[in-house]
């Protein structure tokens, strides 16, 4: 984990973005952190930039996270992606798993974010 990584946080909630950003920056001061506040801007960002970690919210005002997930996976085949959502129903967990992506139920805490980063190794 010596090199500088690029972390993208996709979430319509400022609070969530802040929490994740704070946890990441506290542990990895060098990392670059980007924010996308809705699905559309997230898609635009993954087209033009390269990311190592992407945290993705599901329930967003424009398009749901799972809808854009294949697009993101296509453009960022090497990124480690995690879905962070308040929708904790079993079908949701299954759907996320079927995309080969890990699931993290909100509310988000430090251990959760660190586990997500740790999974990439």
């Amino acid at each position, binding site marked *: 984990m010596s090199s500088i990584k690029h972390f993208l946080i996709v979430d319509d909630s400022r*609070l969530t973005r802040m929490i994740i950003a704070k946890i990441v920056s506290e542990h990895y001061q060098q990392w670059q952190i980007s924010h996308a506040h809705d699905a559309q801007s997230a898609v635009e960002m993954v087209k033009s930039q390269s990311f190592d970690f992407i945290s993705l919210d599901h329930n967003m005002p424009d398009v749901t996270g799972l809808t854009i997930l294949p697009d993101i996976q296509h453009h960022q085949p090497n990124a480690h992606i995690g879905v962070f959502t308040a929708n904790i129903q079993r079908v949701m967990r299954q759907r996320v798993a079927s995309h080969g992506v890990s699931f993290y139920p909100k509310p988000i805490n430090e251990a959760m974010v660190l586990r997500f980063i740790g999974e990439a190794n």
Partner: protein
Amino acid sequence: MNQALLSDEHNDTLCELFNIGMGRAANSLSEMVHEEVILSVPQLNTVKASPTSLALSLGQSRYLHAIEQCFSGDLSGQAYLVFDDFSGVDLVRQLLGESAMCQDLGELEQETLTEVANIILNACFCCIAEVLECDIESDVPLLLKGTPNELFHLQFSNAGLAPYLLTVSMTFQLPSKSIKGQVSILMATESLQKLIKELERFSLIYT
């Protein structure tokens, strides 16, 4: 006036808390009906409670079912889960797997609706209590029904003077029916100020 009461940041934080709370409630409901419950993003609005704002918050419905739950502790007030028109009826029928021919709820069905509202409201308040690390207690829920006018009088007279009205609108969909509900929270001035303080305290941790 809205901006004066809660900043965008406060709004955002509360919304996310309700989002998480609703997510848990939906999970509980989906386990009960063995079906997926689809949630919309909550819309939060805070206004000074007045006859007009109350009437507006209840929409154009002809008949309502509302579940009242009083809460006390670090935050206090009354929370209402209000179902538009016959959304409550539809929801219960869906849960119990009965055909909805009659528009009136029987006693058993009223209990069912009360429990469902209880699940939602509790999930929301637990989430607030958990994340904001504050102490909230709730009473046993009570079912109210009637025209918006009748309900409004009840709500207003219960809330005391110059309360604030915080409304969170959301829809949750069961397989065939879309059910519209709204959480309305009536809070006294000092209670709202307390909430704002808690939100700011929480925000400070992350900024």
